[in-house]
């Protein structure tokens, strides 16, 4: 008994946090398994991974921004804009790879503008990206005249989301893994990754250590923009159309995933592996609620509560390690 206790004590904060999330994940699974016999089926497992993909990919970007002690509320709108742009370009006969490349670039540009507003113009991240959220959502509605853009001239487009590797693994799951590895590599192994942690931990100190903090912020935001754009393309491919009203509030899921995964709103903390766990918690929660036929509206309520709860847990963590 004592040895388990000692082992428990020797875990650092981050490991402890990881363990708690894992436990929550298992409890959720047990709960839903009892509620719905379908929950534990292989089909549903693949569905969860696919559903988690969008949350997970956007959360990779979000965690970069959160580590740099900021937040990106424009993610949902970026998803919509990227999806609409992609669908429109394909409908206009532009080759698929080119359309995808352009959308990713668009996401990067949106991110750079966000980063510019925050680091150069000195706007609070909440306000700057909230404004961007409105601008982008508005633009998506304006260019589509508020109606969906259906892709009718390409069979390949929907394959992006609906295709399967070896006829089993859905493509989005692969994106989730590959982008996760890339994100983790950037954060942990590269100079720019370390600099993101430094900026989020103490911006003044980072500046005086010779770090170009504005550049780092713009990078974090453009990474978030790129991830949102990729998620936007995947989502558009899943419904084979560009929907201007899609993904409203998805930034909340991304924040929840990051923070459940151990990222701290006070900056300087967060990992990609934790974020995947967080995204899985969100994915399983929403999937389970679906199976229990809880209405979409109640799901929104629950998501909001989870976000508040997760950020509160983060607050408690900080209070504990602060003194």
């Amino acid at each position, binding site marked *: 008994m004592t040895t388990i206790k000692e082992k428990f004590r020797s875990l650092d904060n981050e490991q402890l946090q990881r363990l708690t999330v894992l436990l929550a994940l298992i409890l959720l699974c047990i709960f839903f398994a009892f509620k719905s016999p379908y929950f534990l089926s292989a089909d549903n497992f693949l569905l969860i991974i696919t559903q988690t993909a969008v949350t997970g990919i956007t959360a990779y970007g979000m965690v970069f921004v959160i580590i740099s002690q900021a937040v990106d509320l424009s993610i949902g709108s970026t998803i919509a804009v990227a999806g609409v742009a992609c669908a429109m370009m394909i409908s206009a006969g532009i080759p698929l790879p080119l359309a995808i490349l352009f959308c990713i670039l668009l996401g990067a540009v949106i991110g750079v503008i966000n980063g510019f507003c925050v680091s150069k113009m000195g706007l609070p991240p909440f306000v700057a990206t909230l404004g961007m959220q409105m601008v982008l959502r508005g633009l998506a509605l304006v260019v589509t005249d508020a109606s969906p853009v259906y892709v009718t001239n390409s069979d390949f487009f929907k394959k992006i989301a609906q295709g399967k590797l070896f006829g089993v693994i859905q493509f989005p799951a692969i994106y989730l893994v590959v982008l996760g590895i890339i994100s983790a590599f950037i954060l942990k192994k*590269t100079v720019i990754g370390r600099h993101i942690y*430094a900026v989020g*931990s103490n911006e*003044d*100190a980072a500046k*005086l*250590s*010779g*770090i170009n903090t504005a550049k780092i912020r713009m990078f974090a935001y453009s990474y978030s923009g790129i991830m949102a754009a990729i998620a936007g393309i995947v989502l558009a491919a899943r419904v084979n159309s560009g929907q201007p009203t899609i993904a409203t509030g998805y930034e909340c899921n991304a924040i929840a995933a990051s923070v459940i995964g151990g990222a701290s709103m006070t900056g300087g903390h967060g990992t990609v592996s934790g974020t995947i766990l967080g995204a899985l918690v969100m994915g399983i929660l929403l999937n389970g609620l679906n199976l229990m036929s809880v209405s979409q509206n109640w799901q929104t309520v629950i998501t909001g509560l989870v976000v508040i709860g997760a950020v509160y847990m983060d607050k408690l963590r900080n209070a504990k390690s602060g003194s």
Partner: protein
Amino acid sequence: MGEIILEMKNICKEFPGVKALSDVDFTVRRGEVHALIGENGAGKSTLMKVLTGIYRAESGTIRFKGKDFLARNPRDAQEQGISIIHQELNLLPDLNVAENIFITREPTKAAGCIVDDKKMHQRAGELMNRLSINIKTTETVENLSVAQKQMVEIAKALAVDSDILVLDEPTSALAENEVNTLFEIIRTLRNEGKGIVYISHRLEEFERIVDRVTVLRDGTYVDSMLWKDTDIDGVVTLMVGRSITEQYPKREAKPGEVVFEARHVSRGKVLKDAGICVRRGEVVGLAGLMGAGRTELARAIFGADPVEAGEFYLNGEQLHIKRPYDAIKRGMLYLTEDRKKDGIFLDMEVSMNITIGSLPYYASHNVIHEKKARKVVADQIRELRIKTPSERQIAKFLSGGNQQKVLIARWLCRKADLIIFDEPTRGIDVGARYEIYSLINKIAESGVGVIMISSDMPEILGMSDRIVVMCEGRITGEVTREEADQETILHMASNTHTRKREVV
């Protein structure tokens, strides 16, 4: 000295893995200034946190004014008559002096609904008079100097009629004349019969103010004695458990050619045509009162603040520095004054703190070579004798001295021509100070030009080859080590021929 007012006995406090206090005794009498000293980590702050209710002791008794005493939190302690004034002041910058003093206990009228401003300012004014402090009660706290803020904190403590005042490093951010004013106030309080607990690293000031001293070491009580029965060497020996023979290590000064020069640096009201010149292997002390513009000059050289005018030369070549990044690239490095605010990454690992200023050295195509970086970190930890359980330790758990060493290590990872140390030993204990001084000397001996900003006069005199003095943004004097003495420098620093300074 009056009767015993506070008695702490056999206080024990444990944190996971560390025994922070074991069987510590501490008593305070009315009308005494009682210094509580010890190296960083000796348990001074922990003991005071137990007293003011931030921590709960595992065992031990506290008696205050003849009764058992237990504070639930600092505010509760204050209401019961024990106030603590921290190094980091806890005032609300946007409110005025009177509002800060009476926060949460504002005098009211109309059945407690409306704040009685007139009465509040009147009572605040009375407190100010009692302490002979010359600050307007309508002044916004943000506009006050550190010294003035500290005095407002003291007034705030008196407003609730505290019997014991704990002053945590009260002079570490003060200039000489401000220290005198503070000491006057402390003497007034002593004469009123208050018990003053005085925590400070500046032992040389004790002569002027301290009645009794209690020494802690590694969380244990060492000894308690009257100051008149001991001296600095005596208590230092008790603090470190060995005797330190010299405060400042010796160095053979061999200044070479001029490595850096700044001329005609101006920025708003804070820098007026200032300039400084440093030779290779030379330590130039930059002295002055608070707000003289020393840190501002350093930040201007480093590119941290934009300047309106100024020429900078490194090895005879003119530089155009726009941001710290440019300065660092040219080998001009700056160790900041406020370690916690803009120096160290408190919640990051030691290894990250050391390598963050030089990551591109261990990276190719932006990807870091873990092995190379780890080796550099291990070398620095060994060479600078940084006391840390491992390179993965979080920086905030290191002592102030070791944090400072980590910051020095950060810059030693780079090639440097000029290093500016801004208050390198502020808040650092005697033992670690000596090591920091040795490091600075070693850096200078390796041919680097060193500028050392310090408000600690003995440190300036003990370390510098040449001393440059600033006042109100201007260079007001320069003396060699041989010519320098405390009086000359103070004279230059207060620049007596300019208008009479407003003394707080």
